[in-house]
């Protein structure tokens, strides 16, 4: 195989590529749009939960100290924008929530403070009796604790509603504990001296330090950019099946390959040229989308993409992913009978493999059988390779299974293409 022929063949592939306007749009504009749009959306969702205040309607029919304390704690948390509308009753809270565009509502019933105090009285009396300090005045009534009503918009994700509910239980625990301590001190005729204990109870709470599990000294912070830029870049790489797959079908069907068979040239030259040009395209896609992640996204107030420390390993993952995408496109192009088949099946199969592989939805939220199915998607392994480096700060050893699987996939696709072209007597 002479370099002259290789150059001519590469030039031909390049010219075919740049003449395919729709293919170029799919290869370069689509990933930029996907990365930009999905990152903005996910970052927005992240901010809604973590940074923005969620509007909450509070209807307080209690008008007692504990009701006020609960509203105070909600305000102090900084997570909610509290709205206490006038004239809203228990019956109309639901309508107020739905009509007012609020996401959450809390109804504090009449007698909330009285109910809590009665319960605290009962608890303190039980304690005193058990300590042998007071037995005469023990009242063993069944104090009915008041019930708060928590409404949430059905649009709000269930897990977020549950976390708000958990927060309310925490606030209520704090209120009830404080109330009980006051009641006990009062029952023991030392009212007014409980402030030290209350302070101690607050200050000795166990702190929980959130730590993102990453390897080594990685300083990469997981965020919407770190997740989405690699994921949608992989998706776009595999979408080259529409351009390369149909390109191969066209050459098979228009007689160009047949003509080449009569010439003093090797068919391997044609395939190598396609692989080289399209691997180049895939690497360019990575540079373009990563460049967008590093320089463009910060300009629209999104986190910048941080490259992993191990750049060589990242290069290997990019190369393996590119080869996997090109090999898959060649496989589809070899087996499809028409360009419509290559485009239709190729595009749909990439969306399915992307969904299975965790591009659209994280794998950990999938049922176990889908998590198993994910291991059959090449996009999953490409994504895993990027996540090992971009999110977990992984090492070469952590990439072993990624490299092995992708290597096997590339070989299988190339063999599948070779087999079909051999059956069709094209090579």
């Amino acid at each position, binding site marked *: 195989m002479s370099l002259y022929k290789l150059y*001519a063949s590469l030039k031909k592939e390049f010219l*075919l590529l740049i003449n395919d306007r729709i293919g170029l749009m799919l290869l370069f504009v689509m990933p930029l749009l996907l990365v930009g749009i999905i990152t903005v959306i996910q970052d927005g969702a992240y901010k809604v939960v973590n940074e923005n205040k969620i509007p909450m309607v509070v209807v307080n029919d209690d008008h007692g100290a504990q009701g006020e304390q609960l509203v105070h704690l909600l305000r102090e948390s900084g997570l909610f924008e509290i709205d206490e509308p006038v004239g809203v009753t228990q019956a109309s809270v639901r309508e107020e929530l739905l009509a007012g565009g609020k996401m959450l509502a809390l109804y504090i019933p009449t007698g909330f403070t009285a109910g809590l105090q009665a319960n605290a009285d009962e608890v303190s009396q039980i304690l005193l009796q058990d300590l042998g300090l007071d037995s005469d005045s023990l009242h063993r009534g069944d104090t009915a604790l008041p019930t708060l009503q928590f409404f949430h918009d059905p649009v709000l994700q269930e897990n977020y509603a549950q976390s708000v509910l958990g927060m309310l239980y925490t606030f209520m625990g704090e209120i009830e504990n404080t109330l009980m301590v006051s009641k006990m001190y009062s029952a023991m005729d030392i009212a007014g001296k409980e402030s030290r204990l209350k302070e101690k109870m607050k200050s000795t709470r166990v702190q929980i330090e959130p730590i993102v599990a990453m390897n080594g000294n990685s300083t990469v912070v997981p965020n919407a950019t770190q997740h989405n830029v690699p994921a949608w870049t992989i998706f776009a790489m595999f979408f080259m099946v529409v351009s390369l797959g149909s390109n191969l079908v066209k050459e098979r069907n228009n007689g160009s390959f047949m*003509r080449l*068979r009569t010439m003093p040239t090797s068919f391997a030259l044609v395939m190598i040229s396609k692989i080289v040009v399209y691997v180049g395209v895939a690497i360019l896609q990575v540079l373009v989308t990563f460049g967008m992640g590093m320089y463009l996204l910060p300009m629209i107030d999104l986190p910048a993409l941080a490259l992993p420390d191990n750049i060589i390993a990242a290069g290997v993952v990019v190369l393996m992913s590119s080869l996997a995408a090109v090999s898959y496109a060649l496989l589809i192009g070899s087996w499809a009978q028409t360009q419509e088949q290559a485009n239709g099946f190729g595009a749909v199969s990439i969306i399915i493999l992307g969904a299975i592989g965790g591009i659209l939805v994280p794998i950990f939220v999938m049922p176990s059988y889908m998590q198993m199915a994910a291991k059959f998607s090449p996009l999953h392994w490409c994504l895993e390779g990027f996540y090992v480096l971009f999110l977990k700060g992984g090492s070469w050893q952590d990439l072993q299974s990624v490299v092995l699987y992708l290597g096997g996939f590339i070989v299988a696709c190339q063999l599948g293409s070779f087999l079909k072209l051999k059956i069709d007597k094209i090579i």
Partner: protein
Amino acid sequence: MINHLGIELADICKLYPKSDTFSLKDLSLSIPQGIVYGLLGPNGAGKTTLISILCGIIPATTGSIRYFDQGQPISEIERRQVIGFVPQDFAFYEELTAKQNLDYFGAMYNIPAAYLGPRRDELLEVLGLSTVAHKAVSTFSGGMKRRLNLAIGIIHRPQYLFLDEPTVGVDVQSKEAIVRYLKTLKQGGATIIYTSHHLAEAEEICDRIALIDHGRLVVEGTTGGLLENHEAPNLQALFLQLTGAAFRDQ
């Protein structure tokens, strides 16, 4: 002038997979060098199959083919360098320009870049494509595409040129240009193996003819000799006399 043996076919049979009928059966031919050789026959006679076997696109089921140069047999690798193939379909890249197509296929024939440029320009000029050399082939008329199809097949000045219906579906002007150039090639010493349904055209340019039907050789000889022996006024009359008037594509 003595014409050396160019191509020798011995007992060629072709049976396609999943077919129970031979497309070619016991076909033997000796094609001299430097002539225009017509492979004629009705639809489905086996002409395209024979050309495909001769060009090495598909293998024969049984039988042998030998190529010669000045009486000496040549190897498979040499054969690929000395044959040119112009298929019935447009076998090129419609997205590329005529110039880019010729440059690519010329390089595949190992034509050095220094020689390829002038040769490409010469062909574009002779075949009336120089004014559209830089336009995408997808914008070409049928006649222009047919001429480009021919140009690609002859860019390396082949000793053996195989043409499968080179003038089908083109206007009179394009047909004239193609036939004129084929005559020029023959004068240059090329051996041209040609199939066509244009029998008047074949009668005008073919030195020898092989008439094939149902995959078998019906008759073979010089054009004049065959007409004389069968007392036929022209090739069309001979064709109908030997192959019958029944439709073949039903």
